[in-house]
């Protein structure tokens, strides 16, 4: 093979490796959004000591969606926080659901887009979902959002976690296939929106 033929190959290789850099990029100084209490709290249940009450007014959903969807590091941080902040306590370790609705299926009671999931975590939802706004910084919330979306296989395969720090009974997130999100019923059988 002559040198001229090598060049496109080399370029392709470089481009490939640069895309991998972005996938693994670690942002340690993310834009500081509001860690303050959210505009809407839909329930009075909160971790720690309550800051702000249900229905209180303050900025809620971030004006510009700031997501980590293409970033493998952020998604695995989200996986760590999912366990740390006890999301797994109700939604189960693999997102299969227990006291809370499953996150690994294609039914989304309050919407499956990043903004919807962010709002559900920050504001809380009726029938038991606590409101974490103000208790979890915004960038960590986005990490959890990105991870929650991997549970039903919605992110790119190369950013989904392929293994966990602990024993895991369900298949790794990386091998889950996405289904189209649908509306679903709330736990008590009422149709949301």
């Amino acid at each position, binding site marked *: 093979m002559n040198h001229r033929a090598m060049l496109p190959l080399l370029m392709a290789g470089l481009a490939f490796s640069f895309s991998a850099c972005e996938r693994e990029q670690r942002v340690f100084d993310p834009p500081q959004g509001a860690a303050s209490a959210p505009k809407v709290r839909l329930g009075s249940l909160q971790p*720690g000591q309550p800051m702000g009450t249900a229905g209180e007014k303050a900025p809620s959903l971030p004006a510009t969606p700031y997501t980590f969807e293409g970033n493998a590091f952020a998604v695995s941080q989200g996986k760590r926080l999912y366990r740390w902040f006890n999301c797994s306590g109700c939604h189960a370790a693999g997102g299969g659901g227990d006291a809370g609705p499953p996150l690994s299926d294609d039914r989304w009671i309050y919407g499956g887009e990043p903004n919807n999931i962010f709002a559900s975590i920050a504001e809380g939802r009726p029938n038991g979902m606590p409101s974490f706004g103000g208790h979890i910084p915004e960038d960590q919330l986005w990490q959890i959002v990105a991870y929650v979306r991997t549970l039903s296989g919605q992110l790119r395969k190369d950013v989904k976690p392929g293994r966990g720090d602990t024993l895991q009974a369900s298949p790794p997130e990386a091998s889950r296939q996405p289904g189209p999100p649908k509306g679903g019923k709330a736990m008590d059988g009422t149709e949301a929106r």
Partner: protein
Amino acid sequence: MKGILRGAVRAVQPVFAGALIAAAFGLQAQPQDVLAPAGPQAAHIQSLWNLTVVVCSIVFAAVLGALVYVLWRRPRADISALPDLSVHMKPESAAMRSVGGAVVASVLLLLLLIVASVLTDRALAHLSLRDALHVQITANQWWWEARYDDEQASNVFTTANELHIPAGRPVIFSLRSNDVIHSFWVPNLHGKKDLIPGRTATLQLQADRPGVYRGQCAEFCGLQHSFMALRVVVESQAQYEPWAQGQRQPAPEPNDESKQRGRDLFLGTSCAMCHAIQGTDASARRGPDLTHLASRQTIAAGTLHNTPDNLARWIRNPQQFKPGANMPATNLSDDELKALVAYLVSLS
């Protein structure tokens, strides 16, 4: 001969130790020294090290000597003369003798080192564990949790990154890891021991000389591996007891308005998601237990001195000091931060 050797070892050791310390800690003078054992375990390891240095130095000198001799000796033949091939026709008895002697000496010296190593291992296992103190160490990215066990459940307490142990009393460390492989290493007290997720390792040691010794994670464990230090304070039993008694108490109640506000902020914002303060509702164990934070000399696993200013800067943006650490930046207002620090500083 032996005296000369001992002198040579003494002369070489400070150079080694100085280089190690300078390499590991920059200019900071820290009491972390493999060659200054503070207990029997470290002393056993040091004598093995001494023997190894002597043996290896002798071998090194002998090899260099042989090389210098070969370079220095006069050629036997004239440069212009044809090569004398007759040596290949007859057995080289002199060369055989030298090579054979060197092989035998190498084997014997290696055997000596193996025997010494086995004997050191046996000596390390012979530490009497009567009346031992049990401490469970759990390594995390990037800090150490220490739980002091006791037969009485109410006497168990948890602290982080700073251990106190009584001098002259054996200590049994149970070592675990919460995430990746770490290694527990306090060079003045013992060798390294790896902490492997899902397994429990034990390390038994005794410290005889009171002092403050620095430990360090010795297995690369991620971005902030180098800032994963711990301090071991060795003190007399009479000093240790009051310390342990203090650690068992719940955190002191805030006694003024500012501290009260600091505590409400701690419990109401993101702090309580990861940290515990005994005596309050905060009981998460993802970050270091802060019940007696003010009694520690450093924060963030030996990264910063524990001063109110450092504490404020650390809470404001930990990523500035330990990029990649799992503690997020906070966006508390200046007076909120002041109240929070006032509360944390009161946790003695």
